[in-house]
């Protein structure tokens, strides 16, 4: 019986204090009855091996004790869908805000802060956000399980809904295009953000865009006109706008199908930086670093370059305008057809 005492003692360690004596007394009574019964059948006391088999069949002390504990969840199945939704939204917004602050605001405020160093804090921030969201939901689960009168279970996404509240069928769904996966939508945001980071590093490290040619630009007699800065910040701003819109779509669960309005809107605002260049004063895009000394030698080249750039952007602008007009016409035509079908 020493083995039984040791077994029960081991179970006791894992039981809640106030119920230990009661549970152990009951377990002892049941097990002693079982042993007596078995010994009665065999007509002899159990051997040590048989005793060990009996205890092994009963299970490890920690497992036996755990079954006396109430079933517990950190976040239960009722609350989990809401938790997962909030976690996704919180992580996305934390990502957007951190990228904006790290890549734009901090480097602008303090020139000594390196964008890459600043961006390296993102994983830490995301882990913290996930941790806090989890703690809050675990606390809600704990409170609603133990004190349901004070903290009733959240019903939001499980019961309080009505079929009428379901969103309209996506128009793209009707067209039966292949839906995008969640991973694809997230990848677009991640790669968009990486592109943005790369773009922001370009002024500091021109070789990222020009490669070895950056060294030539440094020693060449030419320099870019200030209008390129306006163009650059418009491109940065529009990229941020696109990433933010995609994040909002992801948070709203609208990533499966490309929104046609969004597509047209991106194309329309994409015209702005092109128009900035086309309306540059005197259509000057390239300047001489030292006009006094180099005007005679390179003046003709500068004029040709400025004309060439202006012509190139005029062509690009025309192409984008034609595409935009086509997209708008298709949208209007589909809208007209849908109205016709509906009536």
């Amino acid at each position, binding site marked *: 019986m020493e083995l039984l005492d040791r077994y029960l003692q081991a179970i006791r360690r894992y039981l809640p204090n106030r119920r230990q004596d009661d549970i152990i007394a*009951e377990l002892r009574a049941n097990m002693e009855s079982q042993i007596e019964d078995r010994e009665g059948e065999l007509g002899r006391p159990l051997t040590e091996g048989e005793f060990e088999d009996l205890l092994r069949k009963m299970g490890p002390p920690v497992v036996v004790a755990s079954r*006396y504990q109430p079933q517990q969840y950190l976040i239960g199945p009722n609350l989990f869908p809401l938790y997962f939704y909030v976690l996704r939204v919180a992580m996305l917004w934390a990502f957007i805000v951190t990228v904006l602050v790290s890549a734009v605001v901090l480097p602008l405020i303090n020139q000594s802060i390196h964008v890459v160093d600043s961006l390296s804090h993102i994983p830490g921030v995301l882990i913290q956000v996930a941790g806090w969201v989890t703690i809050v939901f675990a606390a809600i689960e704990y409170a609603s399980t133990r004190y349901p009168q004070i903290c009733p279970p959240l019903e939001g996404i499980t019961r309080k809904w009505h079929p009428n509240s379901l969103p309209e069928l996506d128009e793209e769904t009707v067209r039966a295009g292949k839906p995008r996966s969640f991973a694809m939508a997230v990848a677009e945001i991640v790669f968009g953000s990486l592109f943005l980071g790369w773009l922001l590093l370009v002024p500091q490290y021109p070789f990222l865009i020009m490669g070895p040619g950056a060294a030539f630009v440094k020693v060449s007699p030419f320099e870019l006109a200030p209008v390129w800065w306006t163009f650059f910040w418009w491109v940065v701003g529009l990229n941020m706008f696109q990433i933010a819109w995609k994040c909002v779509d992801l948070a709203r669960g609208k990533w499966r199908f490309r929104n046609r309005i969004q597509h047209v809107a991106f194309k329309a605002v994409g015209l702005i930086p092109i128009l900035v260049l086309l309306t540059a004063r005197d259509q000057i895009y390239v300047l001489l670093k030292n006009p006094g000394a180099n005007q005679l030698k390179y003046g003709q080249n500068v004029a040709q370059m400025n004309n060439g750039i202006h012509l190139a952007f005029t062509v690009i602008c025309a192409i984008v305008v034609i595409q935009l007009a086509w997209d708008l016409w298709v949208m209007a035509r589909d809208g007209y057809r849908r109205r016709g079908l509906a009536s």
Partner: protein
Amino acid sequence: MTVAENLFENLRLELRRGCLTLAVLAQLRQEHYGYTLRKDLAERGLEIDESTLYPLLRRLESQGLLVSQWREEEKRNKRFYRLSAEGEQILVRLLSEWNVINASISRILEPLDADDNKGQARK
């Protein structure tokens, strides 16, 4: 254990869980202590591990479906359980639900059983 075996085991446990509760409640219309309850259920073909049954009794008691008392029997203190008044009501409702499900499953399986019998007759 293969994935299929693991899946089967999970489904089997899920299926058994509710049935065990029903069987225990039904058996405790008569008073029992843990060990004799387990023996009685086993004799009727329903084996339950000790480490499952004893905590289940506690849980059902804490839910108000069973009542218990310590009493001496054969020179040993034992905790005897029986169905409470609330437990009796719940048992009646659960048995009714069980009968509905059982009858439905039988009706669902009837065509399959008939096909099997025809197949065997052809052989």
